[in-house]
């Protein structure tokens, strides 16, 4: 078991603007498992995700399983062009990720089909977030980095997202998630909690 980790974080420390954000964190992410990162506002959850994806410089080790060469990400900034329409947004990323199927079923799934010709700037907050999940689905990455995936979503959508993550896990993927809401949805055995203070 210990050999087939997706992600192995050992003694990770990070400094931003000459301030130490966290010190010597260690945890592993195994397939079919999810790691919850817990901590107060400003404790460094987002920073941790950025360290794992090698955007910030850190000290310590982040080992990624061979063959995994990208991460899926959903965060506060959605990565949407305001002037793009939903359709052209999805079409662009579909091509980038080489997603073969049609994305209309995804839109259906998120209840966004009506908005296919609407520019992103006229979507509501939750709808934008759903769009960035649509991109995540098309990407088919093994490891998902989710920065407060369900904040600002309604109950139904929350459930959809949690089911989505569950499915992703059941297919052998893993996820690193932060959230201020209780996520009691997942099997306790599959959950690792990491506390930052």
């Amino acid at each position, binding site marked *: 078991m210990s050999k087939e980790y997706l992600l192995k974080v050992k003694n990770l420390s990070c400094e*931003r*603007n*000459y*301030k*130490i954000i966290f010190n010597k964190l260690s945890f592993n992410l195994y397939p079919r498992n999810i790691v919850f990162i817990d901590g107060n506002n400003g404790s460094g959850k987002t920073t941790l995700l950025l360290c794992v994806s090698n955007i910030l*410089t850190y000290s310590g080790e982040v080992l990624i399983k061979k063959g995994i060469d990208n991460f899926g990400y959903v965060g506060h900034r959605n990565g949407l062009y305001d002037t793009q329409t939903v359709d052209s947004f999805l079409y662009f990323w579909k091509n980038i990720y080489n997603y073969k199927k049609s994305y209309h079923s995804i839109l259906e799934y998120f209840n966004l089909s009506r908005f296919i010709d609407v520019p992103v700037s006229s979507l509501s907050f939750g709808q934008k977030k759903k769009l960035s999940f649509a991109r995540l689905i098309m990407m088919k990455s093994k490891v998902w980095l989710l920065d407060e995936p369900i904040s600002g979503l309604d109950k139904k959508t929350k459930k959809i997202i949690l089911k989505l993550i569950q499915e992703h896990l059941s297919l052998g993927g893993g996820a690193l998630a932060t959230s201020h809401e209780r996520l009691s949805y997942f099997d306790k055995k599959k959950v690792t909690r990491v506390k930052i203070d």
Partner: protein
Amino acid sequence: MLKYFHKYANPGKFLTLALPVRKIMGIVSIGVVTVGLIFALFLSPPDYQQKETVRIMYIHVPAAWMSLMIYAFIFFSSVVFLVWKFPLFLILAKESVTIGVIFTFTALLTGSLWGKPTWGTYWVWDARLTSFLVLFFIYLGLKLIMDSFSYSSKGDYAFGYLALIGGFNLPIIKFSVDWWNTLHQPASILRTGGISISSEMLIPLFLMAIGFLFLFIYILLVSVEINLKKRKIIYYKNKPDN
């Protein structure tokens, strides 16, 4: 080697090491510049062509050399910072900028004052003068970018990379007189074929150059010391209170 380097790239170590150097440089530089000025203004002969105006040379040439040298110093410090991330080199580079601006401005000013009697104009747009003016702007740009990222380490890298990109200008300045026929004098001292200038002019010139160099080192060390001490204060202020 790198380990040794690491030891003195540590700001604290650097300060203890630099203190005696700073004190010596302070005294020596003032002495050398004074002697150099006496030689330059009174003891050296006037040029047979340019008469007394040649004395501008003893300011102009060392100042021009210094501005090129300081930029080279900034360039290499920035490279060291970008590659090995030693913060000390960033501080060295940043503190050199203001001094560089002053020397560059001096060289520009004396050069154009000198140009009026010798070339008949204050300014021409030839390769040497233009590239040197560009150097001045790059210095100012470095100064500006330092203030444009408040309290963020992002600015450090912006500074480093700008210094890196600006480095292309140095060889252009240096070799502009050789590559194009410009109004400006080609190199007569720092060149491959050996020195071609009389020793009566060479001595004060070198005295001034060395004096300027020491002066630069002195001012740099003082400002680095101030910077490090200020940084410590900020560091303690920002330390998370447990």
